[in-house]
């Protein structure tokens, strides 16, 4: 392994928040100002690091992990576990998204007047290093380990700094997530034992398992079982339909910066695991489970969507909405094609940003109205025009209007669904979800920002005049909204690297297996090409989209 500047940046990006957390825990930094300064460093540097790595990532070359960092002596060698970091085309955009959301969330936490700020930041930085770590882990054991890093602090933080109902919500969150983590761990152990590879990292496993499949050793039944474990394990972590009830309750009780990181990033772990680990390693299992996954994802979209419609509490509504939109990611993954999975990854990035934005804005609204109940709000727009602007933007992004990142994700998923005759029914049902989210999103805008000022609001205003956002409050929101707009107008900024990874012949076993089982060969067309074709027809307002027209339509994974 050669250590270059990029490797050092990668290690530092994950290491700095971790070290900061240790320093804060041990109390080496005492004064409040120093704690805040250290906290700032621990969020700004990882953001800079992730941005650097994103820009340095070379998607022109062959797919695979870049910036690889490997320590062979750390871990259980006899099980092939070793500390191995690296980024590939799928993880790089998510890594950057983590850096952005982390910065916004961390900034919010630092600016808040939290009691016991040192401990809070210690836990939040620990969580942040876990979040960055699991996207950057190549070794599957450390992938899991980093996730738990992030999970346990969230339990403590909800319990200590949460709002009403925190004790119950924290316990429920913990039990659900640990069940999910345990099932996932079972699946990973099974993979390790079956593959008997000398390394427990993704490329080695993929090679070993594909050889076994070729020899007929790793058959459908085994794959079915292991994929089932991973699907439900990871599904619980992402709030897949029947196991979703922990999420809105926990988000309603959580402190805002935690909710931003948890809903925005931590919940992507399960989706990322499915897209990066389960699908490519267990293509035959994925094929058998895909119809289940699609039905459950529809449950997320429609049933949870209706539940979100019934919420009067703004925070809960955002929580349910985030669970609902995760359903689209599941749909994309359930289609099993490169277009579907790639669009799901795009939606994951955009969803992370937009959910974090909504939780942030809901905090600002709560500070001004003194409540989360939408019935008691009204007429905020006249007092706080900037907040109103941002909130409208956030809602539009959440609904998935063109111009925001979410649009491209959902759009790509719908196209993927439409390409395959068997999944067209889902297209019809899922597009109904857009209407639902438009209803509750726009209704929230109307109730919170416009209309008459309620009595309660007026009473609250008596004590202290409602002020608009200050510059420190605007900054994180603009960062998130700006990233969303950037992706919205320039989707190739992330879709190219995702494409490069998903469509490499080395990696994508699904489409090969798909061919064998009679799936149409068009399932291998990538995100960029598909989006670009349509982008030219519909919205040709950005030159950079049009360039991708010459992207090769047929590629190696096709027959």
């Amino acid at each position: 392994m050669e250590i270059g500047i990029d490797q050092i940046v990668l290690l530092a990006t994950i290491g700095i928040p971790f070290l900061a957390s240790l320093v804060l825990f041990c109390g080496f930094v005492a004064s409040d100002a120093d704690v805040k300064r250290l906290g700032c460093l621990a969020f700004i540097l990882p953001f800079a690091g992730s941005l650097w790595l994103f820009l340095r990532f070379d998607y022109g070359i062959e797919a695979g992990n870049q910036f690889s960092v490997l320590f062979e002596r750390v871990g259980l060698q006899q099980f092939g576990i070793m500390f191995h970091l690296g980024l590939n085309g799928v993880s790089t955009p998510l890594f950057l998204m983590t850096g952005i959301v982390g910065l916004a969330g961390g900034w919010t936490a630092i600016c808040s007047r939290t009691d016991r700020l040192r401990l809070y930041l210690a836990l939040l930085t620990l969580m942040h290093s876990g979040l960055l770590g699991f996207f950057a882990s190549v070794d599957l054991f450390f992938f899991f380990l980093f996730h738990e890093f992030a999970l346990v602090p969230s339990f403590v933080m909800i319990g200590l700094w949460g709002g009403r109902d925190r004790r119950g919500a924290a316990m429920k969150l913990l039990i659900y997530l640990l069940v999910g983590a345990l099932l996932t761990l079972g699946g990973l152990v099974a993979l390790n034992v079956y593959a008997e590879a000398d390394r427990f990292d993704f490329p080695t496993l993929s090679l070993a398992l594909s050889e076994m499949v070729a020899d007929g050793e790793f058959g459908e039944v085994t794959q079915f079982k292991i994929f089932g474990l991973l699907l439900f394990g990871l599904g619980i972590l992402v709030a897949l339909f029947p196991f979703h009830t922990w999420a809105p309750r926990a988000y309603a009780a959580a402190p805002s910066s935690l909710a931003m990181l948890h809903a925005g990033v931590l919940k992507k772990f399960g989706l990322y695991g499915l897209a990066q680990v389960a699908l490519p390693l267990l293509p035959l299992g994925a094929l058998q489970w895909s119809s289940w996954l699609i039905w459950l994802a529809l449950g997320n979209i429609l049933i949870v969507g209706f539940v979100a419609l019934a919420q009067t509490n703004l925070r809960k509504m955002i929580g349910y909405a985030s669970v609902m939109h995760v359903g689209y990611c599941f749909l994309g993954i359930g289609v099993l094609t490169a277009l579907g999975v790639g669009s799901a990854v795009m939606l994951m990035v955009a969803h992370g940003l937009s959910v974090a934005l909504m939780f942030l804005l809901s905090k600002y609204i709560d500070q001004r109205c003194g409540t989360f109940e939408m019935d008691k709000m009204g007429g905020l727009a006249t007092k706080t025009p900037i907040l109103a602007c941002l909130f409208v933007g956030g809602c539009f992004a959440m609904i998935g209007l063109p111009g925001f990142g979410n649009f491209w994700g959902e759009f790509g998923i719908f196209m993927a669904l439409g390409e395959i005759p068997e999944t067209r029914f889902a297209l019809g049902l899922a597009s109904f979800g857009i209407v639902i989210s438009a209803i509750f999103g726009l209704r929230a805008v109307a109730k919170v920002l416009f209309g008459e000022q309620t009595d309660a609001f007026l009473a609250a205003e008596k004590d202290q005049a409602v002020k608009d956002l200050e510059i420190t409050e605007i900054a994180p929101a603009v960062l998130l909204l700006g990233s969303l707009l950037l992706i919205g107008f320039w989707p190739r900024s992330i879709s190219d690297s995702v494409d490069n990874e998903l469509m490499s012949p080395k990696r994508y076993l699904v489409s090969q297996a798909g061919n064998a089982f009679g799936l149409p060969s068009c399932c291998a067309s990538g995100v960029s090409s598909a989006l670009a074709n349509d982008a030219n027809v519909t919205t040709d307002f950005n030159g950079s989209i049009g360039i991708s027209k010459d992207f090769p339509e047929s590629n190696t994974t096709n027959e």
Partner: protein
Amino acid sequence: MNSLQSFKEFSDGNQWLVIWPETALALVAVLLLVLELLRPARKGMPSLAGRFARLSQALILIFFLLDFLVWRPSWDRSIFSGLLSQGFRSDIMRSLFLLSSLLVSIIGEVYLRRRNLPRGEFHGLVMLASAALMLLAQSSHFLMIFMALEAAAVCFFVLVGYRRASAKSLEAGMKYLIFGALSSSLFLFGIVLLYGVAIGPEAWGCQAIEFGSGDPLEFHYLGEFIALNAEHPLLRAGVVLVISGIAFKIGAAPFQIWVPDVYHGAPTPVTCFLLVSSKAAGFFLLLNLVNGPFESLVDFLAPLLGVVATLTIFFGNLAALTQRNVKRMLGLSGVAHAGYMLVGVIASMYFPGDSDRATWAVIFYLFAYLLASFGTFGVMCLARHPGGDAEQDLEHYAGFGRKRPFLAFVLTVGQASRAGLPISAGFVAKLLLFAVAFQAKLYLSLVAMVVGVVISMYYYFGWIREALFDPPPPFSDEEVIADPWAGADPDPTLKLTLFILTAALLVLGLWQGPLGDVF
């Protein structure tokens, strides 16, 4: 002539030197009694005996580790005509018992000082019990095993009832005595059956071993005899009885019924001693037996132990779920841990040899359990509860995080390790057990383990929730509990110990170093 020969061997050779740690422990234990007589400890002050006990145990531990890791050329040797046989595994276990003994002395000193209880005898008894358990770890003869077990059990009987003024402690001592006697007699009956059949095989219609006679209580000979007559019902009955006797020690179902009451009533350091050392001894014995003399009975023992393990896991976890008393909860969770480790024991039967991956997984689990237990019990020893030491309830930990952040941290890491959360040694230990169970294709036990772990999350984190999260405001007419943590500042030794234990738990969770190569 034969016996004279062996007597000559005894006196000529330097075989006694081989068990110098045990001898040294016993000698120090006797010295402690003399010391206590000459210089009795004053109330509330650190005692000379305690200091001497800790120092000498630390020295023995250090020299023992140097001895077997650095100085000794080879590990495997058999001494005293095959009564004891040492190997790398048994030496690792001896160091576990030594370490546990040292830690019990450290937390015991704090506990006894806070309660004005006599200290010299306590340390002496702990060391004697540890010496006996260390002998147990290396015995390869049923006579030796029984002697060692009984020697340890007698010390434990006294230790459990050590607080003579407390009814709970006496009740626990009584219960432990009765159940211990029952377990010993079952164990003995099993040995007798095995011996009876093996000494006169013809009378019971068994095949005799071709090459002459041997000692039918010795592991190697007995193993070959059982392999020849694996189907014989009397032999099987003997094996089941022996394992039942051990099941008492490790608290496996259906012999776990004594666990909650005894762990509840025993003085807190003794509870920890029982939980760690006694259980570790039982498991190591079981590992030795199922990979040694009982090896040929895999097809018979594996399903039997599988049922026992599943029952143990479910009983332990479900019973612990409703406990408000933390000592009972930890005791019952110990039952559940015994169930998990039993799965590892079963897996070890499917791996060839007696030093396989599954065996090491169980041993690693025992070490992780030791670290977590002593951390938690070290904290518990500091409290002074209004209802007496036995009544440590969850309520007493309300607001603990604000009052004692360091102790709360130790407690949290210990609980997380027991629950099997990363990053902690407990997580790696559970992962290893999962992996070996998977490799041995014990899918049903694996499911039981997973369900058990899921159930256990509730009570482990229930305690953390109580300790860390701010308590709900009390009702106005509720009586206010006197703060059990008043003046509970750990002295530097204890603080350092707790810190090292917690750090070891965390570091082992990330980096197993040379331990990882063993597997």
